[in-house]
Structures are given as C-alpha cells and as structure tokens.
C-alpha cells in the first residue's frame, strides 16, 4: 500500500539522520586532530592525548547523568556547584582530621541529598528544572564558600592525588577516564537497553502519555536528579584529587561545558532523543578542540567564545535540519499537519 510505504521511508530517513549526526562528530574529530597536528608536533603524542583527556574528565563524567536528564526533558545546572561543594566539604573534613574515606562517603551522600532537593522541587512542585537548578547552582556554591571560605586545602595523601593525576599501571590511560568509561557503559546500557531507559525516552517525548501508561514519572525524575547530584560529587572528588587541592570555587563554569558536550552529542534540548555514544564522541571532540586551541596559544577568552558558539550551533543545526526536513516532507506529501486540535475544539461547542 502506498499509504504505509511513506512512513517506513520516513523512519529510514530519520535513522540515517541520526547516523549522520554521529558520523558528523567522527568527521569533526578527525578534522580537529588533523588541525591539532599541524599546530604542534607535540599534539599527536600519547602523552598529550592522555593530558587532553584527563583535563575534561570531570565534565565527561557529569555529562553522563546530564544526558539522561536532558533526554527526560529536564536540565541540571547545579552540577558545577555541587562539585565545588563536594570539594569544599572534602577539604574541610580532611583539614579537620576526618579520615579521607569517611570524607568521600559524606560527600557522596551530600551529593545525593542535593540531587534529591532538586528532584523533589522539580517533580513534586512541578517547577521548571531550569529555574530550580539555577537556584541551587547559587545555593550550593554559597554553601561551599561558607564551608571552606577562600582558603585551599592541599595536603592530601599521595594515594588520593595519584588517583586523579596518575595512570592505569603500564598505560597512559588516566584513572578518571576509567571512571568515565564505567559510567558511560552502565548508563548507556540503562538508557538504551533497559525498560527504565525506554520510560525515560517516553517521558521526554510525551510526559502525559507516559503517566497515563503507568510510568512512575515522579520517581524517575527524582532518581535521575539524585544520580546527577551524586555523580557531580564524584566529579568534585576527582577534581580535588587531580588538582591536589580542595577549593570552594572548584568546577566554576563547568556546567556550560557539560551542557555543550551533551547537546553537541546530539541530545535534543527539548527531550526525548539522544544517545550516550553520541555524547561520548562529543566529549572527545571538545577535549581535542580545547587542547588544539591551547596549543595554538589561543587566549582563554577566545576559547570561551568558541565553546559558546559550539553550544549554540549544536542546538541550532539539528533544529534547522529538522525544520527543513519536515517542511520537505510536508511539501512532498502535500498534506496539512494533523487536525487534532480542531477536532477537539469542535467537541466542546
């Protein structure tokens, strides 16, 4: 039947568009590596790659739960402050003589509670997460400054700093990369291979239908914010370890990079679509780009501009591509959009 042939073609085209987005990322990655190589002979060395990866691992780690949250149709802007708060508490506790492993446990619990706060206000209060987490972005940072003040704590034991700084024995792979890999693997399976992930997509695409289908929307929303808070704390711990210093302003500005990475990875800012592999590719792209810019002695200000442009482009390009595609489809089918709104209007004379 000709009527049913068209949708199948649509689906194929949609799939190919998705494939193209990730293909695009791979091409961009290759382009950036080539560019980096021309900029500096030092660029294409294992040591440099190890460094450029290590430099972005906190962002990459926080981007994993952020992917799920944005697919869900929400956002968590507070992650960088939670990382800062974690760093501050860890430093404070260590300086006060508390064993480090206790400090780490406390910090992860704090992260979970911070996420719970975000999640409850968003899911129970029905408030936009953009506003709620903007509030907690300031709240957590303020708390961090109260806990630690302007000072830094830096006399951490060697084993702790070795974790952030060192490599897996016999390789140049930074330890934090292994954390990222594990997280990407687990959350990738959760999002793409379990029914929890399916429910996350359903909520992102149509929260009413999800709720009417018995999906526990509130529970999933709250859980993901808790996860995001905990992972942000983990990132704060890794950051403290890598810099061998706990500071209240740790992680400042990271949310921007996290959001950029997730959106560049092809996650729809309005929720409902996106992949973990796409975001992982975007992590590599941004890491290489930042490294190349640094090797080219581009100033921090210009680097920030580049990142901002990347964020905007990664939202704008798919949107325009989608609009162009649906306009094309409509023109081809020569049929107006569904008239459901009209049917409903008529039903209540």
């Amino acid at each position, binding site marked *: *039947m000709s*009527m*049913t*042939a*068209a*949708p*199948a073609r*649509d*689906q194929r085209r949609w799939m190919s568009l998705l494939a193209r987005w990730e293909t695009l990322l791979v091409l961009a990655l290759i382009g950036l590596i080539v560019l980096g190589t021309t900029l500096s002979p030092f660029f294409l060395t294992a040591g440099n790659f190890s460094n450029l990866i290590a430099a972005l691992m906190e962002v990459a780690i926080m981007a994993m739960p952020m992917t799920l949250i944005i697919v869900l149709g929400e956002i968590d802007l507070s992650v960088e402050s939670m990382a800062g708060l974690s760093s501050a508490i860890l430093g404070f506790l260590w300086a006060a003589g508390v064993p480090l492993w206790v400090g780490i446990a406390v910090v992860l619990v704090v992260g979970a509670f911070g996420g719970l706060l975000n999640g409850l206000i968003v899911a129970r209060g029905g408030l936009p997460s953009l506003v709620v987490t903007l509030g907690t972005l300031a709240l957590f940072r303020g708390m961090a400054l109260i806990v630690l003040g302007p000072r830094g704590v830096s006399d951490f034991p060697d084993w702790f700093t070795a974790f952030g700084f060192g490599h897996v024995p016999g390789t140049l792979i930074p330890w934090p990369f292994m954390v990222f890999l594990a997280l990407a693997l687990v959350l990738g*399976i959760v999002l793409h*291979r*379990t*029914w*929890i992930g*399916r*429910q996350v*997509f*359903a909520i992102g*695409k*149509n929260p*009413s*239908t*999800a*709720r*009417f*289908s*018995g*999906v*526990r929307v509130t529970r999933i929303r709250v859980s993901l914010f808790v996860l995001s808070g905990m992972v942000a704390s983990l990132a704060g711990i890794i950051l403290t370890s890598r810099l061998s210093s706990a500071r209240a302003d740790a992680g400042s500005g990271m949310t921007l990079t996290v959001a950029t990475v997730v959106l560049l990875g092809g996650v729809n800012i309005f929720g*409902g679509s996106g992949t973990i592999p796409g975001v992982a590719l975007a992590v590599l792209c941004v890491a290489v780009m930042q490294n190349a810019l640094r090797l080219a002695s581009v100033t921090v200000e210009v680097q920030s501009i580049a990142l901002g442009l990347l964020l905007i482009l990664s939202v704008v390009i798919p949107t325009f591509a989608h609009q162009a595609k649906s306009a094309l489809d409509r023109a081809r089918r020569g049929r*107006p959009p*569904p*008239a*459901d709104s*009209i*049917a*409903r*209007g*008529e*039903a*209540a*004379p």
Partner: protein
Amino acid sequence: MTLPPPAPPVAPDAVTASTPPRIELRGISKRFAATQALEDVSLDLLPGEVHGLVGENGAGKSTLVKILAGVHQADSGTIRLDGEATQIHGPAHSRSLGIAVVHQEPRLFPDLTVAENVFIGHAPSGRLGSIDWGGTRRRAESLFRELDVQVDVGAPVRGLSMADQQLIEIAKSLSLEARVLILDEPTASLSAHEVERLFTIVRRLRGRGVSVLFVSHRLDEVFALCDRATVFRDGRHVVTMATRDLTTADLVRHMVGRTVSLFPKVETPIGDVLLAVSGLTKVGEFRDVGFSVRAGEIVGFAGLVGAGRTEVARVLFGIDQRDRGQVLLAGVPVSFASPSAAMHAGIAYLPEDRHQEGLVQDFTIAQNVTLPILPRLFPRLLTRISTERKVAHEFTEQLSVRMTGVDQLVGSLSGGNQQKVVLAKWLASRPRILILDEPTRGIDIGAKVEVHRIISELAASGLGIILISSDLPEVLAMSDRILVFHEGKITAEIPRGQATQERVMFAATGSATVDEPAAAPAAGGVQSEQRLDG
C-alpha cells in the same frame, strides 16, 4: 454614549425583503481534515432578535461561532452583513465589523482593572496619544450604569465571578458598538440569579437593536430568552423556527434524529459485579456518583462535555483524587494514588486525547503497545526487541491494525489505526475494567465500526467496560445500561431496552423528563440486578 442607537424592535417572524438580516449566512461549509464540521449551513440573524442555536456535541455550533468571530474561515458560502457581502478575515476584522463574542469562560487579563479590560486596545487617548485613564474609568462606569450593573471599575478582574467577567465582556462589546453579540454557552457556570441578570441585560440590548446569537445546551433557557431557535445536527442546519411554535420535545427530536450504521452488539451473559462505586465526589467536578459495572457489561456514560464523565474516569484511574466516596473493585475497597497503581489493580483507561495522553507519536507501534507493561514483561530490566515485537504483534493482530509492521512509527498511522494501537496497548495490560473515553472520536466510519466490534468482543470475553461517549447513537447501540450525567450528577439510569435518544438527551440537558418518572441515580448493583432478573 457608546450604545448603538435604539432601533425599533423587529418582530422575529416579520422577515420582509425590505429589512435585510443583520447577518445572512448562505451555504457555509467548513472541513477539518477528515471531519466535515459544517455543511451547507444557512442562518439569518435579524436586527433586535435573540436567536438560539442548539445541537449536540459536534453539531457544528462552535465552528459557526468561530467563523463569525474570524477564528476560522469558511471553505465556501457567503456571509452578508446588513445586506452587504463580507468576508471575515480574522478576529480583529470581526470585531471591527461589530461582532462580539462572549465565551463561557471569558478571556480577560486578570491583573488589569475592569475598566482597563473593557477598553483594552481602544482606550480613549489624551494629549500626546497617551491613555486617558480618567476618561477610561468614567466611560467604563457609564457603560456599566447603562447595563444597570454595580461593578467597581477600578478593581482588578482577578477574583471576580464568572458572571461578572462575562458582563465585562458584554460591556466591552458595547464599548466597541457591537451590533452582533454572540453568547457561547454563557450560562454553563452561572447561578440561577446570575442567569436572570444576564437575561435582563440581553433583553435590554435586544431592545436597542443588537442581534444576539445565544448558543446553549439548556433548552429551557432557549425558550425563556430566544425569539427564534435554530437546530444543527452533524454540521447541518436542521430547522429554524420561532420558539413559540416549538416545544422542548420538538427541539430534542430535531437535535437527535440521527442514525449511524453500527456493528451490532453481541449479546453477552453478564457476570458478577467487578466495580462498585458509591457516593463518589470530587468537589467542583462531580458529586454523589454511584454505579456498578459487571463482568461482560458495557456501561455507557452519556452526557454533554463537561458533565463530569471524564472527571469520574480520571479518579477511577488514579490520575485525580476523590474527596469522598467509595470504590470497590471485586468487593475490595480501593484507592489509587497513581495510574500505575490503578493499572496494577486491573483498570485500564483509554484517554479522551489520543495524541497527548494515549500515544507517544514517535515511538514505534511495539514501543507504544508495551509501554504500560515493560516492568512485567522484562523483570530483569533488559529489554528484548523480539519479545516486544511478539507481544505487539499478538495484540495488534487481534485488533487488525493496518500497518507495515510493529516497527512502524505510530505517528504515521491513520487516526483509526492509532486508536486501535491505544486499545492494543491497554489490552496487553490484561485489565479487568476497561474505561474508554470517546473511543471513536475523530476516526472514520469504517474504523468506528471496527472499534465497536472490538468493544463488543472485549465485553464478551468478560471485561467490564465503561464507555464514555458524546456520540448518542454509539452509546445507545453499544451499552447494556446508560448512565446520563448532567452537571456533575447522574440524572438518569436507563436500561438498554428503554433507551432512546430523546430520553438520554432530556436527562443530559437537565430538562424535566416528559414521559417517565425520573430515574433515580442508581446506587450500586441493586437496580441492575432487578433488571437482570426481570
């Protein structure tokens, strides 16, 4: 000062060629996708007449109002205003032609004052083009004096009653020197006293030559207020007559006299009570609702939109919470905090809004069908596409969904097939009670017959079914028993054999029953039991 000059009231039936109607509609048609909302409709609105417009849900009243208000444009037909051919291009144009619409729920700015709302967009200007606030206030005051209504024009609109807000809309139409006033279901949320006040004002406006189109479900009001009445049915004009030549029974007969070929319901033995509801109340929505549903039984919920039928369903499915009352599921008292709890207890709800609540449009058929049962289907978290496809296949096959395969995106299916996917989805959850809210709305006749066949078969398989429908012939043909809702209460319970369109419509419009002693709201299964035995 802003009222139109008083015109001699025209006797409603004294239509002569010398006085052209204020509005003359000829052959108006309007089509929305698959739905022919209006077909070749003609209507005259005379100067100084109050003209009632009645019809069932979906008769085309709203579409006509929207065409006059400039929201929609007619596909064909002519509109004459005072004898002059006109086209209404948009809402602003409609207003400038002197047409004002007062909606059931007025669309005002709650934080602006009464005077500001009346004059929004056309406030008297002072020097330098600034708004003359003093003048605005004084003119608003004089408008309300002419209406003989006490309102503080400096108070914000927020907090005013619906009735007062409607009067502000009317005052606004006067300030625009409207010659045509359309009242779209104005009395639905008004008290008896407020209705009387509204009528007094409408009569006063009629005396000044304003033409009023009064759209209402309440037939007694049409008789009390209107000079003439027009009945629409299925987008067509049925009759226009002077109200003094009409009776309520005539009007109801004109409203309902439609037949649709339907799948004949399979007679099914009716089993035990599955669901028993008593005294169910949600303040402001419905009160003291009591009924029962038995295995194999289809209980029809008839009534007009907003009568409380969907609201009852939402409480039964755990979407909203009740204030009072009891729900027994297979004899056990239940209360659901969420749809997922209701689902686990064996209740399924096919929602009214297929697109927004029933389906995820860009999920595949398989993904939609398995959405409610994912945790049960995959207890070890990991999904298996083959399992999903098998389940989806089983249920879509049973309902003969026309598709290329279960991997097709739902959004690319026709309305009827989409609805079958929603049904498949709920059947896959293996419910005991299935609530269907407007299951055939907006789908073509062929699909409709199929959906009816499915509903009938489901009942035969032992499900208890609640069928909410505004489509009278459908409710009559499919239901074993019909409960009629009117303004949040069950006003009649009519067994299958005794149900006629007239009886249901009388109960649904709150008109006094003519031929029968009023059926008492049924409390539980007692009444049905008598019927079964008898």
